[in-house]
């Protein structure tokens, strides 16, 4: 019975007035922080445990290039 009296769910006012550019900015920052942490950790493992392999640096560079390309694709629709 109490459920019937409960108010309908609504987004908070902050979400209702938020501009798409700000939402994209927040999402992009979250993605970048997660990606940067991952890249640092992966690069550390490659350099530390890669046994001075010639594959280590090209692998890290490839990872960065592909990641940045995908990130650019993701935000390309919002370009000014």
């Amino acid at each position: 019975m109490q459920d019937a009296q409960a108010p309908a769910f609504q987004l908070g006012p902050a979400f209702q007035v938020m501009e798409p550019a700000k939402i994209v900015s927040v999402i992009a920052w979250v993605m970048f922080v997660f990606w940067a942490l991952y890249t640092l950790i992966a690069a550390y493992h490659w350099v530390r445990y890669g046994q001075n392999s010639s594959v280590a640096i090209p692998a890290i560079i490839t990872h960065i290039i592909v990641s940045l390309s995908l990130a650019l694709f993701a935000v390309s629709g919002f370009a000014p």
Partner: protein
Amino acid sequence: MEEFKLEPGEHVIRSVRKHWFVFFAQLLPFALLALLPLLIPGFLGGLAASAPAAEASFAALSLANEWARLLLGAWWLFLWMFAFNTFTQYYLNRWVITGTRIVYIYQYGFFSREVSSFLLVRVQDVTTETHGLFATLLGYGNLVVQTASENSQHFRMTGIPHPSELRDIIMKQVADLHDDGKANDSNQTVRDVINGIL
């Protein structure tokens, strides 16, 4: 080498990783998951034919929509990171066979790593396993090495190329170490290496 250092007189005979097919098989789910969003517009297009009222909503999910591109790009970026993680694990996992020992390096994940080293003179049994069509055709399988120490241990590496060839190399090295004819020459070197390791 960071995990272990070669002793004087010790040399690397073979270093092996998993077979390339095993690696690509591990990447396959990521490729399928990456393609999945591209199939959604076609699927929704079929639904739109039966529900014209929803056609405008479905059309918004095309790549022309900036939000769809944002989600798709983020999805692909996450998949790429997981796939790169798979490659990192593939490359850092390996077996190193030297003239006196086998070093087993296994990267479970970031900050989780196991390095085992056991002497060839303690090897008691080497077993190869090949199961399945692809493994038989492409020549990969498992290698199990059992040590003869008090706490007998099994070391298993799965999906390595040409396991029989590797087994023969290991058994040849073990035989050389036990060979009386070479005892005078090699045992001193082996003893020095073993003393250095122990």
